[in-house]
């Protein structure tokens, strides 16, 4: 009987719809595209679900505040480069290097949050600037050189195939999703973040430390972004500054697609972890299927744009409903 039951109620139809859509597409591609359900292709689908899922979940933690984080890709790459530097240059143990990477991502996210809260500027312009600053600084420090001598245990983990067709990166994503689900549903911290995002004025007058909560949301986003960065490096087998495109902007589409498809409200305060995960699965299935159908790689981007457009029009319908229910003027 709480926020979450309600959130579940809202997203239920949405998540259910996504689930059905996924099944339909999987069946269709299985029939139409030769090799869609082959072990190799399933492996590559699970791998992209793993990475894009974590990217989408990272963005979701900031969408909670009604803001966004354009610098997510830059943070992910910066953190991964930090891990590479710790591993290869400093020769630190793997677990410690990864911990440092997550801490770096969290810190960069916290910087975004602190600037947003203290200047009261919209996170769009703040993260537009920090995207440029973070990425530029990283390239300057690294001299655009990547790290390609990662320990075998790491690259081995990246290449591992469970049951011959499931990437372990998928499991990482499930762990992140489970932790987030627990936070939002079962902790005071998560509930407070949702309340602050849904109505900062009311939350503040109820005594919640709204500013601190917003900084936490951005820090959380940075930390999860760092995990995504490391996962992307594992897929590539190396850590390179260009792995998320110029300024890390290539992550933006998956980052927004998954939560928005999954029913996260852009206005803040309403999320669905399950929806975001399903959203990612949906995108991965469509991308892979279209690819197998020999639709050029580039046209898939166009198709994804159309999917996002369709999704936001659906969200629009949902938002209108929510608005009609909550306002009476």
């Amino acid at each position, binding site marked *: 009987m709480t926020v979450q039951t309600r959130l579940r109620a809202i997203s239920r139809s949405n998540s259910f719809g996504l689930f059905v859509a996924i099944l339909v597409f999987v069946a269709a591609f299985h029939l139409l595209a030769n090799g869609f359900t082959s072990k190799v292709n399933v492996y590559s689908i699970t791998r992209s679900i793993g990475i894009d899922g974590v990217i989408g979940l990272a963005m979701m933690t900031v969408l909670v505040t009604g803001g966004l984080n354009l610098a997510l890709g830059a943070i992910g790459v910066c953190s991964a480069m930090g891990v590479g530097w710790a591993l290869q240059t400093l020769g630190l143990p793997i677990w410690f290097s990864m911990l440092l990477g997550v801490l770096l991502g969290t810190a960069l996210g916290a910087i975004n949050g602190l600037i947003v809260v203290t200047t009261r500027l919209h996170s769009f312009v703040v993260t537009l600037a920090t995207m440029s600053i973070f990425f530029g600084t990283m390239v300057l420090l690294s001299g655009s050189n990547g790290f390609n001598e990662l320990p075998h245990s790491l690259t081995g983990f990246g290449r591992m195939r469970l049951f011959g067709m499931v990437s372990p990166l998928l499991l990482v994503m499930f762990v992140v999703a489970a932790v987030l689900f627990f936070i939002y549903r079962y902790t005071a911290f998560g509930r407070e973040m949702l309340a602050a995002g849904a109505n900062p004025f009311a939350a503040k*007058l109820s005594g919640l430390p709204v500013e601190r909560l917003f900084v936490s949301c951005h820090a959380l986003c940075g930390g999860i972004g760092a995990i995504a960065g490391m996962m992307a490096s594992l897929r590539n087998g190396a850590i390179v500054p260009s792995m998320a495109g110029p300024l890390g902007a290539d992550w933006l589409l998956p980052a927004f697609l998954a939560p928005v498809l999954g029913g996260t409200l852009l206005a803040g305060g309403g999320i669905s972890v399950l929806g975001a995960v399903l959203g990612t699965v949906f995108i991965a299935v469509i991308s892979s299927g279209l690819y197998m159908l020999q639709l050029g790689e580039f046209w898939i981007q166009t198709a994804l744009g159309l999917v996002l457009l369709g999704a936001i029009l659906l969200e629009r319908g949902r938002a209108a409903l929510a608005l009609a229910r909550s306002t*009476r003027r």
Partner: protein
Amino acid sequence: MSDAFVEVRGASKAFVGVQALDNVSLSVGRGQIHALLGENGAGKSTLIKILTGVHRPDAGEVLLEGTPRHFRAPRESIAAGIGVVHQERNLITRFSVAENITLEDPPTKFGLFDEAAAVVSTRKWLDLLHLDIDPRTIVSRLSVAQVQLVEIAKALSLESRFLLLDEPTSSLTPHETGTLFEVLRRLAADGVSILFVSHKLEEVLSLCTHVTVLRDGRNACESQSLAGMTRADIVRLMIGREEAMFAAPATSVRLATPALELVSVATSLGHRDVSLQAFHGEIFGLYGLIGAGRSELARAIMGAAKITGGELRIEGTPTRIRDVTDAVRRYGIGYVSEDRKGEGLILAHDIASNIAVTIWHRISRFLGFVSDGMQDRVAAPLARALDVRTPSLAQRVGNLSGGNQQKVSVAKWLAASSKILIIDEPTVGIDVRSKAYLHDLILRLSRDGAAVIVISSDMPELVALADRIGVMKDFRLVETFDNSRNYGASSARIMQAIHG
């Protein structure tokens, strides 16, 4: 006073869950100054929005000179000759006075905006209102009263045959109001129909000739002549009974130390030299006109605005409140905002979360663990005690009626066991029955030992409820007195303090 110029016939409008207007009619004759009255939430603003094309009625129609009109957007009602002064400030603050006044129909030369012509025509309208400002002044530089006069000038400049003024005098001095009324009378004599919305009954009685009163979304009276009506008659129509309401029994205890005390406090919002005391077991009423600085004072007490001078004491101890979190969690102060939907409640979340929001950090266990059950254990007894009418605590607050929403707003402070409670406009937009319940609740809270400060613009409510009354004007507390609960005496004292 010939045939009707504007007519509303049997208009109804429902918003999800609430019937805002129910078969309301109104007819304003040519050259008539017609008052539209009603308490907050009676449906005035909905009716105005229907007339101005913001809302469309579910049933009924709007007629102009006998012809049915269906406005779909504000620009259509403007085009039809309806000029409006809105209650909310509606100027473009970055634009100059002249640009704002000519926004609907800017003068052009060779297709370009002709500033010189705009200034000339603007000056004419400003002169009419005896407003001596340069039309090239940027609006953000004007005082509140000047802005209001510019808005009126803007409406006049349309030279509409029907003028709708929604609370046009809220920030004006009596002198400025007098000038405005002269202009309006002259316009009426020229055949312009005027619909005047105000809560200042004295103004209505001196200016208007006809009146329509709304109560709970229905006509309490329709287009009646004001001749022979007294203030008491109008009030009876507005509230549906005699003005005298239940009077709270006087408090019996007063401890020596006030729960909250302000000693010549100044704030960054502009308050100066405000001294007041609120005692446990007592209701302190704060009266003042809009813009007197009452809600702002509440914000300063809550730590949302800086106290720049004087001293704030809690239980006798001088205290610096750093921020709202500090006020709520450390000093047990609660604030029920007048803007329930904007900053009181989280409409999209459920009842249980809205009640427990103040105490999640307190009820959580290891690693901040909070389950729905733990939250319900706090929220359920309170929702029951306050008689929140709902099938389930999982109901979204946005789906509740105004009265139930207000109960939830209060419940969250009961959950937080606040010792000091500031309630801003407790019964705005709430139906009569819930109103009585809330009054009783506030009384019970105070008699159970809370120090309650009630901010209200509803004078009868304040006189009935408060043990002591403070009157604010221009960000100062100009008068504090023990309330005798005799309406005549107390209201006279309040008016004396304000208009002095």
